[in-house]
């Protein structure tokens, strides 16, 4: 199937070459054709999407993204529409409000076409932790799409939608983007409102776009980003012009390759593709020593924050309730029945790390490592404008391969975690394929608030790489 970009769809609807209704119908047909196997979607919003398409065609709805179908990770609330967060504890829950990021997309004319599968409560790197079964990688259905936003990544890779929304706490947009051969971007912490994003780790979570092109990622980013009074961690700084910056080029930009995210930590085929790209950029090595401890710090901070955020799922006000004679027993039974094993493991880890006697040694220390990571980035960004690494140490692993080994699974986030700890923006773009035909991603990182620079560099490198491989999905459609 000919890959359609959001920019292309907008242009073709504006010129009258296509209608929004026909566009939505085509994408719904493609979902129908292959999603039985890929399972990117938990729910397809066919009627709603066609209704909104008609509103675009009737001229009632306009905007810079008018008519663009978009998939929404099921961790984002839409008023009256089932939102599960990949969990049985919220099976059937209908939020009474819509997330700001989703509302802004709708106001710009984009059309949510479905809610996508994910690791339960965004905890995972493979989408195997979904209570509703895994999503498969469109490049090879034996392999994982990555996680936790695996459904949103796969939906773009499979051509179900040109763009989708995911969330990224330790790499949950960038890593699946890398494994699925698409673009995935995490903004500076605070650039995109978290109102309506079901919280995993409140100091790390950010919403961001998946797309086939850097241009489309920038278009979605500017549509959703910007201050929101409903999120007190939302930044007031203006966005600048990331879309205009796309054609800026990389003249004068200094590229650094992070030493700690190279070498033995990275699969040799991934390292080879990465080296080929970075050599052409005149990149030099730079060491950020705190990165050695970044993974450990994250796996104390994130579960600690999650143990607090997930305390609300107690069967009292919403979600699954298993009855009992007393409230405490009811809460325990509801959480036992509703949460999956990885979520329980992380809640336990976080509760332990915050409990009396352990708080300073674990959570307190991890917060100090976080300062070291931020300081290392600040120092590196004095000498370099963009930092580079592979997005993921490996290409997609097989379904089931790491599911029994939490530590092996956590290593998937080695390269992505530092950007979340420091709150800086980062993007993954497809850089090549390995010998099994599985995608390899390149990660770019920029200082906080420098999305213009990030998009400019990513667009230029994307053009140089000229990645044009496509997954062969059950025989290509039209």
């Amino acid at each position, binding site marked *: 199937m000919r890959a359609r970009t959001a920019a292309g769809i907008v242009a073709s609807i504006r010129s009258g070459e296509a209608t929004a209704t026909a566009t939505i119908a085509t994408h719904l047909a493609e979902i129908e054709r292959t999603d039985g196997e890929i399972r990117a979607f938990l729910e397809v919003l066919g009627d709603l999407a066609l209704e909104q398409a008609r509103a675009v065609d009737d001229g009632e709805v306009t905007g810079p993204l008018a008519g663009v179908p978009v998939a929404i990770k099921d961790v984002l609330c839409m008023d009256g529409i089932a939102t599960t967060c990949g969990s049985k504890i919220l099976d059937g829950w209908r939020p009474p409000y819509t997330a700001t990021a989703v509302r802004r997309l709708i106001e710009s004319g984009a059309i949510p076409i479905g809610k996508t599968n994910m690791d339960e409560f965004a905890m995972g790197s493979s989408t195997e932790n979904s209570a509703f079964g895994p999503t498969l990688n469109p490049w090879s259905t034996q392999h994982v799409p990555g996680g936790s936003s695996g459904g949103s990544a796969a939906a773009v890779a499979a051509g179900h939608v040109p763009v989708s929304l995911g969330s990224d706490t330790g790499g949950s947009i960038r890593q699946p983007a890398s494994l699925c051969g698409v673009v995935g971007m995490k903004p500076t912490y605070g650039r995109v409102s978290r109102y309506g994003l079901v919280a995993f780790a409140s100091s790390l979570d950010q919403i961001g776009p998946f797309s086939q092109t850097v241009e489309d990622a920038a278009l979605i980013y500017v549509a959703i980003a910007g201050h929101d009074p409903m999120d007190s961690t939302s930044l007031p700084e203006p966005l600048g012009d990331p879309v205009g910056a796309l054609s800026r080029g990389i003249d004068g930009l200094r590229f650094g390759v992070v030493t700690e995210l190279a070498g033995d930590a990275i699969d040799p085929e991934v390292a080879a593709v990465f080296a080929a790209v970075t050599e052409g950029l005149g990149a030099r090595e730079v060491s950020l020593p705190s990165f050695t401890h970044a993974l*450990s710090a994250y796996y104390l901070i994130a579960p600690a924050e999650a143990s607090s955020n997930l305390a609300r799922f107690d069967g009292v006000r919403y979600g699954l309730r298993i009855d009992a004679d007393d409230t405490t027993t009811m809460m325990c039974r509801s959480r036992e029945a509703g949460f999956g094993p990885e979520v329980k493991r992380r809640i336990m880890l976080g509760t332990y790390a915050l409990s009396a006697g352990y708080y300073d040694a674990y959570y307190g220390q991890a917060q100090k490592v976080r300062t070291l990571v931020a300081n290392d980035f600040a120092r590196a960004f004095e000498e370099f404008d963009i930092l580079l690494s592979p997005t993921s140490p490996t290409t997609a692993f097989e379904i089931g391969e790491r599911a029994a080994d939490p530590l092996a699974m956590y290593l998937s986030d080695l390269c992505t975690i530092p950007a979340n700890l420091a709150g800086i923006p980062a993007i993954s773009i497809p850089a090549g394929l390995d010998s099994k035909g599985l995608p390899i991603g390149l990660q770019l990182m920029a200082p906080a608030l420098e999305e213009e620079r990030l998009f400019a560099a990513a667009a230029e490198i994307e053009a140089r790489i000229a990645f044009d491989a496509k997954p062969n999905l059950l025989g290509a459609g039209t």
Partner: protein
Amino acid sequence: MTITPDDVHHVAKLARLNFNEEEVARLARDLGDILQHASKIAELDLAGVEPTAHPIKLKNVWRPDEVRPSLTPEQALANAPAAEENKFRVPRILEVEDSEE
């Protein structure tokens, strides 16, 4: 780093989670492994390093104390497993010790 079954039971009580004995054993092992990995952090000398709770420098974001549109009681109760007289209905609340499973 050894996590005992007693440790697991204590933390499970704090986290309002139930586990059978097999799960307790597996958690003791998994948490032990993860904390073993993370304990390298506990050993670092970071005296004098300020902790970072939050990546951005915003503080005390205020708004005027004015009533704004919010959920109606009906909307707030719409997903309630049990509701009565505009309240969430729950089973009786005991002292924690009385309710151990």
